[in-house]
């Protein structure tokens, strides 16, 4: 019996080792940026991205593409997240597969952090230059100090070619054109190799003699002074003086070679200009809103008043970058990412045109698997169970109006 037990134990151990070894061969590529894990209220109630455009789906190394669009800084910004007084327009990509050749909010280049105002809408553009071949999920992203990264929608972009062909030419203010990709690389390697060699020389000078046991015996028996010879002292002086001379000389020659240098540049950019959005003529009041967990659908009762002079219809509800469309009113032609587009996801109980001066109460349902896939259903576990989003109304001439909604959300489990 004992033999059988031993054999079972041994085989189990071998099986465990084989399993663990096999596991290392399974290394799937990480293809997303945790956007679905970000708390739903963060995505719904902070930065609303819209009118996005990825200029290309496929781009060759050294070619450029842009991501452009608008973002609205939600006026009902949650208390649990620091306000976007120090923010940075970033881009969500897996490392520098593109270089960020430029980024603008409005007309302002934004290589530094910016201060954004709640309730404002801004236009942005990011210019990317392809560097590393592969299929990459390219997200819009706004980093907020004290709030963390707020990731926007992502779209797959393919880079073709070879990274070895990538160049990044830059002309300095001293008139020199360099390739930033490998600029001064030899200089860096040289100085690090030089100092490492000098450090090794000092080490070898000492370790070529008997070290630990005899020296410990000597120190223990009160003969420590005999362990450092006059030659050792001379060599040490040579090393010490040599180091100081090399540092001073190399600094001098460097200053001669680069007479013009400036400190690193930093600082917050204030006064970023928002878009002048027209005052909406449609007024929306949220009577109630529920999220039906089993049906993966959000239902709202809205009282809509049209104060304009043309009839309007509700065409889109946009929340957390998921776009729910009423296909009778709006079809997307921008190439928006499929997984974030519910082309028939918006149902309005009565979506006939609301005439000027008319007030109508309607039931609006936004339903799609995206609620579950993008973990927006987790909103009911958030510390402040509210939802927010953008409603887009269209008149008979195709003019668009944007209206923000922000209201409590009651979950329904039956």
């Amino acid at each position, binding site marked *: 019996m004992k033999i059988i037990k031993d054999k079972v134990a041994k085989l189990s151990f071998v099986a465990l080792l084989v399993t663990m070894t096999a596991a290392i061969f399974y290394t799937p590529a990480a293809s997303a940026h945790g956007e679905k894990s970000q708390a739903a209220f963060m995505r719904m109630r902070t930065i609303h991205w819209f009118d996005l455009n990825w200029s290309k789906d496929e781009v060759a190394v050294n070619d450029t593409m842009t991501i452009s669009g608008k973002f609205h800084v939600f006026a009902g910004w949650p208390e649990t997240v620091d306000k976007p007084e*120090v923010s940075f327009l*970033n881009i*969500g*990509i*897996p*490392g*520098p597969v593109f*270089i*960020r050749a430029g980024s603008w909010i409005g007309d302002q280049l934004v*290589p530094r*952090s910016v201060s954004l105002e709640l309730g404002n809408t801004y236009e942005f553009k990011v210019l990317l230059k392809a560097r590393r071949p592969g299929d990459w999920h390219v997200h819009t992203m706004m*980093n907020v*100090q004290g709030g963390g990264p707020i990731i926007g929608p992502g779209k797959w972009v393919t880079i073709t070619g070879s990274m070895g062909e990538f160049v990044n030419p*830059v*002309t*300095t*203010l*001293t008139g020199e054109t*360099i390739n*930033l990709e*490998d600029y*001064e*690389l030899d*200089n*860096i390697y040289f*100085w*690090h190799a030089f*100092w*490492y060699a000098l*450090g090794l020389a000092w*080490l070898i000078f000492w*370790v070529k003699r*008997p*070290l*630990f*046991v*005899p*020296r*410990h015996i000597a120190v*223990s028996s009160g003969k420590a002074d005999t*362990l*450092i010879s006059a030659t050792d*002292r001379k060599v040490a*002086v040579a090393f*010490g003086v040599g*180091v*100081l001379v*090399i*540092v*001073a000389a*190399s*600094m001098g020659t*460097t*200053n001669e070679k680069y007479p013009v*240098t*400036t*400190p*690193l*540049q*930093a600082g917050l950019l204030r006064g970023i200009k928002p878009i002048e959005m027209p005052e909406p003529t449609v007024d929306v009041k949220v009577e109630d809103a529920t999220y039906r967990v089993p049906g993966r659908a959000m239902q709202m009762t809205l009282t809509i008043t049209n104060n304009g002079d043309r009839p309007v219809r509700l065409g889109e509800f946009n929340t957390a970058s998921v776009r729910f469309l009423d296909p009778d009113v709006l079809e997307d032609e921008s190439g928006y990412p499929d997984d974030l587009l519910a082309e028939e996801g918006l149902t309005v109980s009565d979506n006939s045109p609301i005439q000027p001066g008319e007030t109508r109460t309607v039931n609006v349902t936004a339903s799609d698997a995206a609620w579950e896939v993008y973990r927006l259903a987790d909103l009911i576990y958030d510390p402040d169970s509210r939802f927010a989003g953008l409603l887009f109304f269209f008149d008979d001439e195709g003019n668009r109006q944007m209206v923000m909604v922000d209201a409590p959300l009651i979950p329904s489990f039956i």
Partner: protein
Amino acid sequence: MSASQSAVRSRAEAVQVSRTLDWMILFTLFFAVLGGYHIHYMLTGGDWDFWSDWKDRRLWVTVAPIVSITFPAAVQACLWWRYRLPIGATVSVLGLLLGEWINRYLNFWGWTYFPVNFCFPSQLLPGAIVLDVVLMLSGSMTLTAVVGGMAYGLIFYPGNWPVIAPLHVPVEYNGMMMTLADLQGYHYVRTGTPEYIRMVEKGTLRTFGKDVAPVSAFFSAFVSIIIYFLWHFFGKWFAKTDFISDDAT
């Protein structure tokens, strides 16, 4: 063989065993220090050491020597007071730099493709060699702390300048002036490191105009002296042999 008998049978064999022990201890020491020092320095110096656009004349100069003089001081205490070996600082920094270069080359460049000229480590060896030389010549912890620690802090910026200066050449980019290092930080996207995290050129040290680096270096040198004392005592404490019953010391 009883406990009282020798493990070796001749002087030649004793020398051979002693030498083997030397290499084993040195190898173990080197890689143990590499691991511990690397983690310590990455946690305390971190981004200042990772990226060229963090290597400024104010905070990098201040922080890097203060947080990096730690292990050299501790290892010096052990190797000097036990063995009269003045290699503690150099062996520590050699270990650290080997670990850092492996990390930067294989991970930062090989894995995530950040150019090496953007993520190379700071140079600490000039200060380490001087620290060892001062300890050997003085034989005094106090003098090593004051003179060596001071030199360690002061020599840091000029020791790195040949590598840093080319990256501080200015460039005009879409209507803004920045250094090439700033441009590297802007071009080579770090999703998890937004610009506002960068701690450069912060503080109230404005009285000296553009000559900030020497003042920062002096401040760093003074604090390095204190940190040297502290970590030297740590090293002495770790090098105790109280747990050996028949301790000759």
